[in-house]
């Protein structure tokens, strides 16, 4: 790494002056906020957004002509962005680029923003071509992380991130919205899996959610960044193509969303079924939602008054071979039902019986964590099936349709 200078303070304000036209504003904003988080997660830096007035770091998009920047851009390709070194604080992006998120098309806004913020914080270009601070854009990386050289550089300027104090007084003043650590999709247990609107597969763990596609994983977002008002560490999530409703469960509460908008009156308290569910899924064959806890399940008809007095019923009575206390479940677009627990998953056949050869590895088959295999694998299909050319954005925006959507089981299925 190369050091160009440093700020004499560690709490910096920033202001987003405009956004690109190629992305929905909430996606673009989240990409920029995540770019700040990459640095604040490894160095004792805090960033605060301001909506007006002078900010330390100012992010904006301009093109070939700019009244306030003498360094004009050059149209699509070539120079993508530039930034000033400390303590100037300008970060400029070429508005003629196709700024994208969650797809290999165009230029990834989050990664370029993180690079330019590196300059704004005092880092020069790195000689490691795989480092974020390398001068040439290496393309979209779904599971992006800082390179050790990037971390070493920023820590050389500002020191290492001090672990959170456990002092009681400090705990009381801690912001409740402070996110948990960013999970590694290649290890650990999922909180929930959901086949969401338009066939997008969402994986939830802790405070984060990401999409799973045939081609790889989408970037990790805070749950509340996509579904405003929703907490992390969910118990279960289920989307119903029958009603287009998404239900999230946590503790004794349920949240209902249509796409990314919370339904009025929610969250509500769970009254007629037990709290702390393990998993949930929508079964297209009977158009019902199944809720799981321990060794039991509830079957819920969203559009009729369900008599829950006969529930919970034993999971094994309907889903043969499934483990108790699954961490997640989903009825997927291939028509199979899947259960998840620990780092493993089980696939059920049409008779709802676990198929031979299961459980298998979630990391390998769902999360594309298979370093020896250049082609990503699909759940339950070994390594032979090829990528289907999906370009899945991370949220259900109105602009992206893809091959996955065509294969999504609908209510008509």
């Amino acid at each position, binding site marked *: 790494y190369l050091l160009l200078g440093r700020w004499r303070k560690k709490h910096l304000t920033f202001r987003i002056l405009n956004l690109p036209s190629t992305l929905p504003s909430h996606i673009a904003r989240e990409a920029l906020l995540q770019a700040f988080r990459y640095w604040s997660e490894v160095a004792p830096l805090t960033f605060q957004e301001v909506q007006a007035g002078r900010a330390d770091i100012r992010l904006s998009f301009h093109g070939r002509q700019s009244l306030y920047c003498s*360094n004009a851009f050059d149209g699509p*390709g*070539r*120079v993508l962005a530039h930034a000033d070194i400390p303590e100037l604080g300008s970060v400029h992006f070429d508005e003629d680029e196709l700024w994208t998120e969650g797809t290999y098309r165009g230029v990834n806004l989050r990664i370029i923003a993180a690079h330019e913020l590196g300059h704004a914080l005092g880092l020069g270009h790195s000689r490691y071509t795989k480092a974020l601070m390398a001068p040439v854009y290496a393309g979209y990386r779904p599971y992006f992380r800082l390179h050790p050289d990037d971390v070493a550089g920023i820590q050389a300027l500002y020191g290492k991130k001090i672990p959170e104090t456990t002092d009681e007084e400090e705990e009381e003043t801690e912001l409740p919205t402070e996110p948990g650590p960013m999970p590694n999709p290649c290890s650990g247990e999922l909180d929930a899996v959901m086949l969401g609107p338009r066939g997008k597969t969402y994986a939830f763990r802790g405070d984060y959610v990401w999409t799973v596609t045939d081609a790889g994983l989408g970037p990790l977002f805070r749950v509340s960044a996509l579904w405003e008002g929703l907490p992390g560490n969910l118990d279960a999530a289920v989307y119903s193509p029958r009603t287009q409703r998404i239900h999230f469960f946590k503790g004794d509460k349920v949240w209902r969303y249509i796409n990314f908008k919370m339904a009025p009156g929610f969250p509500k308290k769970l009254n007629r079924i037990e709290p702390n569910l393990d998993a949930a899924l929508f079964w297209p064959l009977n158009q019902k939602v199944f809720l799981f806890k321990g060794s039991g399940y509830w079957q819920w008809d969203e559009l009729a008054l369900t008599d829950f007095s006969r529930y919970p019923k034993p999971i094994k009575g309907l889903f043969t071979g499934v483990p108790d206390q699954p961490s997640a479940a989903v009825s997927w677009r291939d028509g199979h039902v899947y259960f998840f627990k620990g780092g493993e998953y089980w696939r059920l056949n049409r008779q709802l019986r676990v198929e031979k050869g299961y459980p298998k590895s979630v990391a390998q088959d769902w999360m594309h964590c298979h370093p020896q295999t250049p082609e990503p694998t699909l759940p339950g299909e070994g390594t032979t099936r090829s990528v289907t050319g999906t370009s899945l954005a991370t949220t259900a925006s109105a602009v992206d349709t893809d091959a996955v959507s065509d294969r999504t089981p609908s209510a008509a299925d």
Partner: protein
Amino acid sequence: RALGPAEEAAVDYLLQYGYLQKPLEGPQVFRPEDIAEALRAFQEASELPVSGQLDDAVRARMRQPRCGLEDPFNQKTLK
């Protein structure tokens, strides 16, 4: 000798990103050995075969999208 369009574009790139230094005085004429040294620094920094020649790999690398800031790489920093 006069530079062809491809060579001129390469020299512009090397100048723009700090591999070649503009002379403070006199005409902006670079000796072939200056350009070759800048190309070697660029190749080394880009993990390309180091030849000091403007080959296809160098041209392809120079066409890639990138940050507008200068690179700090020259023979001294690489050393």
